[in-house]
């Protein structure tokens, strides 16, 4: 990862629709090359936050700077510096994958040689001439990512990138996201799948009713909420071939000594840390389980 440089800065960002405050004073920062996950249940304000950060709608209050551009005052330049992958699949289905990307090349005034590069990146190079309507959901999602990357944006917004995909397609998309992050692209994604965020994100923020209720690395969030203990599976000394589980605290010296003895005797079959899952952290801070 490159040196710390804020690529997305939201400060007390707000947006109301009639009487409802969809985003109610959200503040966070995303550093260059980070994958930042905005997590929350449906209707929490994730998509509205993305629309605010991508200049699709104006904030009712607060400020947002993305890739050095104020999202309200410098919208024209902002559009050149961001890529957006929407939750809904919005491709021209009658056109081929190449034609979809060629259209974006025309819009951004890019050489068409760039099409092959992004197709390689999302592993679609063998289906370039086929109409998009013949693609699977996973392929369409990858094509949308390719389209968003065509003009080499330093910041990429992904709104529920694996929503509606089967497990294999979702894994392909996650793999593509990880690859992009390794190439230095800053990624802000929204998801309601906490396990996915745990796997992908360097940083996560929980949003509930338009407000951020937690913002940290997944590891820190899990450690701060879970217990410092280990679940140890050992061979049962009384019944040959059977196993038993013990929970040992890492805080107590006697438990630490006992674990060392077990290890020395070669009885330990498996050790699992007892840190909380992101879902458990979410339940604790939000007060309910995500949908």
């Amino acid at each position, binding site marked *: 990862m490159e040196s710390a440089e804020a690529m997305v800065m939201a400060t007390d960002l707000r947006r109301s*629709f009639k009487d409802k405050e969809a985003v109610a004073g959200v503040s966070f920062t995303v550093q260059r090359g980070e994958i930042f996950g905005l997590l929350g249940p449906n209707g929490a304000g994730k998509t509205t936050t993305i*629309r605010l950060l*991508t*200049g*699709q*709608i104006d904030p009712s209050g607060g400020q947002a700077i993305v890739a050095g551009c104020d999202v309200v005052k410098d919208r*024209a330049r902002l*559009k*050149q510096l*961001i890529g*957006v992958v*929407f939750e*809904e*699949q*919005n*491709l*021209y*289905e*009658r*056109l081929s994958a190449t*034609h979809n990307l060629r*259209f*974006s090349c*025309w*819009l*951004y*005034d890019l050489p068409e040689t760039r099409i092959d590069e992004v197709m390689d990146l999302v592993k679609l190079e063998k289906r370039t001439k086929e*109409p998009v309507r013949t693609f699977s959901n996973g392929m369409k999602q990858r094509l949308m990512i390719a*389209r968003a990357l065509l003009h080499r944006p330093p910041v990429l917004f992904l709104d529920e990138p694996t929503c509606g995909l089967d497990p294999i397609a979702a894994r392909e998309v996650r793999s593509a996201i990880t690859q992009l992050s390794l190439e230095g692209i800053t990624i802000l994604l929204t998801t309601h799948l906490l396990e996915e965020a745990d796997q992908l994100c360097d940083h996560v923020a929980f949003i509930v009713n338009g407000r951020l209720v937690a913002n940290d690395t997944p590891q820190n969030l899990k450690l701060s909420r879970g217990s410092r203990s280990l679940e140890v599976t050992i061979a049962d000394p009384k019944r040959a071939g059977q196993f038993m589980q013990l929970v040992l605290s890492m805080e107590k010296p006697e438990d630490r000594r006992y674990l060392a003895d077990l290890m020395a005797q070669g009885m330990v079959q498996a050790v699992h840390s007892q840190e909380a899952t992101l879902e458990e952290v979410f339940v604790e801070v939000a007060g309910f389980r995500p949908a």
Partner: protein
Amino acid sequence: MHPRIIWAIIRKDLLDIWLNKSTLGGLIFPIILSLVWLLIGNLVGGNKTSLLIYNPGNTSLAQAVAQVFPNSEIIQASSIGEVQAAFGPNGAKVKSAYAVGLILPEDFEDSLQAVKPPLISLYLNGSMVNAQTQALLQIDIINYARAIADPQPPVRINTTLINPPATENAGAILKLVYLPLALLASLMVGITFIPLLLLEEKEKKTLRMLLVAPVSFTDILVGKLLVVLTFQLTTTSVVLLIMGGFTGAVPLVVLYVVLGAGLSLSSGLLFGSLFNSVQSAGTVSGFIAFVYIISGIFVGHLGELMGKSPVLQVAKIIPTYYLAEGVVNAIQNRGSLGSNLLDIGVILGCSVLFLAISAWALRRQSAVLAIV
């Protein structure tokens, strides 16, 4: 507005239309329809109508009379006697190759200018020209004279009828109405395609993708309007070519084609801006296109025959009535300045009104687009 972006949208839409077989079918439908009408017209009443005309003053009235028959030829008579001999006296039963004979005085136009009603001899062959067309011919001659000057009466017509009147000729009647109908049918392109192109972007959510790219809503609108305008002008021109419409006052015909394209586009934009789905806009625009086309029936000869019928008055509420009337008059070289100004004024006025309503609706939509 960004020309490069607009050109990109045009290229994408052209490709998308090409790949969409049903859209492509809709585009060529008016052309196929006019070919079918032409074929039916030729099958039902396809014989060439010969007109023997003595026209020493070379007045354009000869062409105006010929326009009453969609498939006609003018034979120039060298003397008055040649016309008289070809038809014979009133009520005679003679075999004649000519449907109409006309003797025009040399000073026909000058007499009209001098407000002196000129005398015309009109010979009608009842076995080739039905009673309705006979009446239309006389109305046509009077209208032509009125367009030059307006003496009372404008012209004196001495009519000679040979052979008993023929029964109604379906082919001839059909030919009299299908030109304005074909022209108005070609306007379906703009009325149905603008909503389709606009609303499909909205329905398929691709509009949102465009709006996070360096594209303005104006670029999108202009790009789509130019695509449909190109198709509209091409289709109307091809239809008129098939129907033999580029005759008479050709510059005026072209002006009406352009005005018609404007009316068609503004109507399409209106439906595209007032509705949110391709299906609802398609249903309403399809119905309106039908009403637009039907108004063409009441234009020209049929309209003249209907006089002050209430049905004709209702048809006059529809703006395309004035478009069809303007084109038919221009083709027949018989529209007066007043009638042309009325036709152009109504078409332009409606187009501007539709554009204004569309602009208001689109402005509202762009404001709420983000929360859709």
